[in-house]
């Protein structure tokens, strides 16, 4: 293979990987937010941000 072919393969692979990774992360974040908003509206509640595993552990420690 030619020198520039290797260069193109390397950059195209990285661009493709970056695009997939970023798309997955951003779309997952938006989907989750939409699901949470829909659930909170239907249940008419406002949940707080907390980590249930960490809080369970705190309770056990006390």
């Amino acid at each position, binding site marked *: *293979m030619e*020198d*520039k072919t*290797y*260069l193109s*393969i*390397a*950059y195209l*692979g*990285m661009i493709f*990987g*970056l695009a997939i*990774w*970023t798309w997955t*992360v*951003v779309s*997952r*974040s*938006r989907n*989750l*937010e939409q*699901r*949470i908003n829909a*659930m*909170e509206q239907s*249940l008419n*509640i406002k*949940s*707080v*941000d*907390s*980590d*249930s*595993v*960490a809080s*369970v*552990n*705190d309770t056990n*420690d006390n």
Partner: protein
Amino acid sequence: MRVRAGEVVLGLGFIGLMITLFLAFNWAPSVNINAFQAPESQRIFYWHVPAAWAAFIAFAVLFVGSALWFFKRSPLGWKLHIAGSEAGLACGLMAVWSGCVWGAAEWGTPWDWEDWRLNTFGLLTLLALFLVLGRQSQPDGVESRDTFSTFGLYGFVLVPLTYVATRIWVIRHPGPVIGGDEESSISGDMALVLMIGAISFTTLIVGHILTSMEITKFEQRLERLQKELDGE
């Protein structure tokens, strides 16, 4: 739809990466054609080195997050652990991929099993892969978090080892281009493009870490809502 800080930072990182790519192909000088087997392929390093740099930042975040969770039971620490392992995996894979392609062009082989730098960095990336896949296959709990945090803590030993590998055991991987000796230094223009690349990758990874932490926050909120719905 509200604007998220993570996505804005991500966008800035992408713009920086595109500028780096443009400068790498159109502005950065070529290397001495007698010094390399594949001189054009050397332009891979404008993304390869910053990707490895970003991976080191991600592994540092993983280490801090693991320590915060393991010793302080900090919810923020767990979020950093998740974000650091995911970002470390992505940047590690990019560095390994571009390095393998360059190795195939320059050395005639994509991997050298006797080179310390390649193998320690490969192990770091495999560690991140284990953490990401392991977390997805295990139920979330104190025990599983402790196990993964322990791996995050001990795995960080590989970071300084990888960093000094080319200084102590120079086998095949080129020596450091910044902070190395006079022979390994690069020209001012090349260093400038490399620095823009490093800043861009750092910005991108910060954006990814912020977005990943937000995802973890949403997942925990969803789990709580589900429990309320189930009457627990």
